[in-house]
């Protein structure tokens, strides 16, 4: 039973289109993230939600809009796709230490590979 699952796994689309990626976790974690991994393997955080509340919003174009309907789900919608959006997008989740001082290690999904033509 997959802990963090993302759909779709592959997305090939034209520039200018809009696309969504969905993520679900069954670990009971209260924090979920979107990371972007470029072709050189660099992982960069985009967004983080804690109990449906946006807590991290890095410098990301506002064409990217996350949405968390509940703490087990985090979706990413991308408008007006550009060539530079081609990357692998990883969803992750973690459980905050109650005192807020823990390591908060991440459990990642398998990734959604987006190719913009």
């Amino acid at each position, binding site marked *: 039973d997959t802990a963090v699952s993302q759909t779709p796994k592959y997305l090939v689309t034209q520039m200018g289109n809009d696309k969504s990626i969905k993520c679900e976790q069954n670990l009971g974690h209260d924090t979920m993230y979107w990371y972007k991994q470029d072709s050189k393997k660099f992982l960069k955080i985009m967004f*983080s939600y804690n109990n449906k509340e946006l807590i991290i919003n890095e410098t990301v174009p506002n064409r990217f809009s996350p949405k968390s309907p509940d703490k087990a789900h985090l979706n990413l919608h991308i408008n007006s796709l550009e060539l530079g959006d081609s990357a692998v997008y990883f969803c992750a989740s973690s459980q905050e230490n109650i005192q807020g001082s823990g390591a908060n290690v991440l459990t990642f999904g398998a990734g959604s590979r987006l190719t913009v033509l």
Partner: protein
Amino acid sequence: QKEVEQDPGPLSVPEGAIVSLNCTYSNSAFQYFMWYRQYSRKGPELLMYTYSSGNKEDGRFTAQVDKSSKYISLFIRDSQPSDSATYLCAMRSPARTNAGKSTFGDGTTLTVKP
């Protein structure tokens, strides 16, 4: 300058070799240090996690943190072809100060040849 710098690789070693993977960092607030392993076309998975300075051993893997030098290492003993993957160091300050954000190194791709 990046907050976390990782030895770039790629690294290619024969089976049985000892491998050393290294990262340096600039943010003295980092207290939690992780190593993630990422196989090709998969998501990263946590390999080791240490808090503050010191060593931690798990089977063939040893993680070392030297906070005074802002330097962390992952050693792999008796390396196996199944260890071939990209290794990513990650670190973070306490959750209440950075809202759960982990900062990653660029990754080192390791190939262990039979």
